[in-house]
């Protein structure tokens, strides 16, 4: 199993440990974020506030040697506040460009569903194209570039649901939950000792993200595994439990994430297990429950798990 | 569209639906019903939106209401799934209310044990709990000498006793449940006093050495009856506790939730008590069976009832 392809797995492990040492009790979330990063996608994180999302991005930015910015989405946030403005500078009497917070490597978009659709659309466009057009000029955002958007499940009032087509742009949706009790104790004691704000921690670059992403892309995929992934995604389309199945983009995302998972595990090929492990986070925001299922109180995860049971694992 | 043409256009349809609703429900017309329902919902919405005449809106409203009720009759639980109920729902409900069951058990059994011990060791004690005529009647019922003289009880008396037990014992259990609405106090009282009476009678009869008539009689149906009384006490306590401590719900919502939660227990309790009455009338009273058989069957029933009642845990995680 441990046929390491290069030094990347070791570096990845170091990065993972680094983040885990900062953000306690959320190792699964950390893994998934790393997977999304390796797959070159963006993530949508859903969870109550105060579970250390900022800390996660901070630690990750440090580990990859990149910059990070944070935008708090509010109902009055304008598209320009995200992408940037063109302003007239009186002293120089010419137009100057003021770059918005998207010009960074890691962008934490907090409570994205609080902003009106137009602002959301601006961000989602940047996510897709990785460039911003300001005053007719196209400008690349940082490289690597990754958006970690969060939304709050409890406060649904005063929020604008993300449009279905746009949700597809996120490669993963991660549900972040309260940490285990013992981890919570650890967190509490540690932060009681530290000064307010915490210490920035190790800022050494641990990994070259672009190299890692290339390596991830090179992971081997057997045809049967690819077929399996497609079958899983197709299973969501015919189901009566879902009003809306996942699109073709989901299969690609599923395979990319499975590759990233394999790389994270230090394996150079993907197995059906990798695919299956990534199904929930990849698909859960791409399907919509049928209304009667919703009334019955079933969650997306339960329904998806149900559907997985119906798909045969690949044949040899 | 003006109201007049609206009525002209759809009036006949409404009339037809009203007529079909007046007739007794056909077997499975849920599909037709659903279509009618959707149609009428739309008409009602139109009528309200366009502020049509109040009488028209009321008529449509009542029609939609009737259709809605008819439509949801099909999901009604009158089609009880017996298998799933016995296998899972009832034991699961008991498991979920295990702390209430424990409390009800203690409130029922502790006074019983104490009163039993007291009456066993103290000849006079029974009279401070029960009236003298009651004591005499109980003594007469279980007097071994009287038994030997008498013949096997007549069949019609058995049926009378069956009715008698159904009427009295199930009513006790129901009252025990209903007492929960008095913030649980009613339930506690019913449990406490029933425990006290049963305990003192048992103690008293044991002291009189009526052992061979009393215990074989009660051991069989007791398994169902006593357990059911404890369960109904638990259901009542659940209601009471929902009122006392509604948690993050409003008191009313908490009570309503509790009411819905205990429904499976109520079904189960009724069935257990009917079985108990049946056993009590036709099995326990039989004198022709040997005492050993009665003990053996009684023990078997106890084991079965307890094993079954506490088998709910494994369904919890689902």
């Amino acid at each position, binding site marked *: 199993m441990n046929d390491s392809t290069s030094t990347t797995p070791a570096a990845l492990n170091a990065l993972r440990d680094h983040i885990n040492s900062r953000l306690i009790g959320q190792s699964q979330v950390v893994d998934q974020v790393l997977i999304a990063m390796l797959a070159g996608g963006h993530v949508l994180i859903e969870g109550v506030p105060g579970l250390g999302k900022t800390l996660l991005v901070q630690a990750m930015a440090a580990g990859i040697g990149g910059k990070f910015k944070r935008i708090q989405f509010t109902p009055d946030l304008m598209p320009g506040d995200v992408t940037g403005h063109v302003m007239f500078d009186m002293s120089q009497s010419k137009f100057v460009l003021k770059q918005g917070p998207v010009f960074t490597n890691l962008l934490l978009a907090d409570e994205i569903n609080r902003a009106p659709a137009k602002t959301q659309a601006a961000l989602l466009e940047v996510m897709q194209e990785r460039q911003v057009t300001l005053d007719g000029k196209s400008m690349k955002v940082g490289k690597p570039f990754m958006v970690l958007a969060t939304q709050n499940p409890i406060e649904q009032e005063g929020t604008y649901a993300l449009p279905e087509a746009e949700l597809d742009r996120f490669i993963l949706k991660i549900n972040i939950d309260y940490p285990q009790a013992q981890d919570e104790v650890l967190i509490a004691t540690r932060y009681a000792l530290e000064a307010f704000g915490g210490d920035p921690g190790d800022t050494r670059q641990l990994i070259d993200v672009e190299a890692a992403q290339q390596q991830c892309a090179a992971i081997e995929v057997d045809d049967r595994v690819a077929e399996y992934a497609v079958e899983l995604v197709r299973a969501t389309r015919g189901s009566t439990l879902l009003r809306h199945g996942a699109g073709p983009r989901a299969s690609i995302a599923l395979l990319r994430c499975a590759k990233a998972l394999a790389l994270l595990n230090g394996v150079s090929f993907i197995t059906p297990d990798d695919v299956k492990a990534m199904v929930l986070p990849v698909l859960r925001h791409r399907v919509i429950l049928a209304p009667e299922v919703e009334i019955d109180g079933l969650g997306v995860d339960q329904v998806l798990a149900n559907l997985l049971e119906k798909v045969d694992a690949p044949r040899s | 569209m003006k109201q007049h043409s609206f009525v002209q256009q759809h009036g006949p349809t409404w009339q037809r639906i009203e007529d079909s609703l007046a007739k007794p429900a056909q077997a499975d017309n849920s599909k037709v019903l659903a279509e009618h329902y959707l149609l009428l919902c739309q008409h009602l919405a139109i009528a309200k939106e366009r502020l049509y005449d109040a009488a028209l809106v009321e008529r449509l409203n009542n029609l939609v209401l009737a259709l809605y009720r008819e439509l949801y009759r099909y999901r009604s639980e009158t089609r009880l799934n017996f298998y799933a109920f016995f296998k899972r729902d009832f034991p699961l409900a008991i498991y979920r209310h295990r702390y209430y069951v424990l409390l009800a058990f203690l409130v029922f059994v502790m006074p019983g044990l104490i009163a039993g011990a007291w009456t066993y060791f103290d000849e006079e004690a029974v009279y401070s709990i029960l009236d003298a005529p009651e004591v005499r009647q109980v003594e007469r019922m279980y007097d071994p000498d009287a038994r030997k003289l008498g013949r096997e009880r007549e069949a019609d008396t058995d049926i009378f006793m069956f*009715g008698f037990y159904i009427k009295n014992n199930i009513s006790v259990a129901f009252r025990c449940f209903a007492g929960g609405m008095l913030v649980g106090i009613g339930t506690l009282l019913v449990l406490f006093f029933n425990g006290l009476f049963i305990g003192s009678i048992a103690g008293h009869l044991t002291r009189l050495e009526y052992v061979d008539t009393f215990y074989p009689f009660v051991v069989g149906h007791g398994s169902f009856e006593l357990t059911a009384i404890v369960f109904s006490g638990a259901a009542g306590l659940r209601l009471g506790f929902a009122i006392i401590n509604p948690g993050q719900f409003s008191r009313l919502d908490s009570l309503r939730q509790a009411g819905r939660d205990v429904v499976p227990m109520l079904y189960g309790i009724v069935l257990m008590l009917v079985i108990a009455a049946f056993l009590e009338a036709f099995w326990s009273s039989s004198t022709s069976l040997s005492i050993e058989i009665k003990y053996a069957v009684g023990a078997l029933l106890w084991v079965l009832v307890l094993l079954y009642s506490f088998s709910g845990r494994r369904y919890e995680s689902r």
Partner: protein
Amino acid sequence: MLDTRYRVEIPGGINLDAQVVGPIPRFFAFAIDLAFRGVIVFVLSMASIPFGAFGLGGGFFLIFLFAIEWLYPVLFEVFWRGQTPGKKALGISVINDDLTPVTLGTSLVRNLLRTVDFLPLFYLAGLITMLSNRRFQRLGDLAAGTLVISVGESNRPAPQRDLVPLAPSTPLLRTEQSSIIDFLQRSQQLSEPRQRELASILEGITHEKDDNGVLQLQRLGAWFLGLR
């Protein structure tokens, strides 16, 4: 605004109204049921005496007594669209508070808890609880989440007379139009002086007085109603 209306939003996005029913009609419904049950019990007791008061007949009599005491309302409510005979006579019905039909479970809870509503004597507790909430729910109703609504016949709009419709000279709001329609449809129930009085309020619109004003309003109503 005080009203006996109970409103629930049902699937389909529609607000459905039901009229809750208070203690007086329910008293009569209960009285009818009580009489009905009394007759049944009497007939049964008569029928069972020949079979032995303490034997066969007595046994079955007790079982029926039990069933009538506890199950009579439950069975009727579940299998007869929420109505016992008494409720049927009064045009009222038991229903879950989301306006779905009562189920065995809710009906059982509701009726077993009669025992507490009965306390301390003849449903005093039930009466007090009924009067302490807007939906007239007694304790059993509260626990089961049920309520009693009226399912009586609805009013039908009155038949229209022959009128020449008249187009309004000024635009009117929807609510105003519907009140004029109401006027048209209910004018048969109103006395003529009252009709004139009402019409005089709208002199600014009809520009007519007295009987002509009334007629004018009715013609407007016919127009709004869509009579052509």
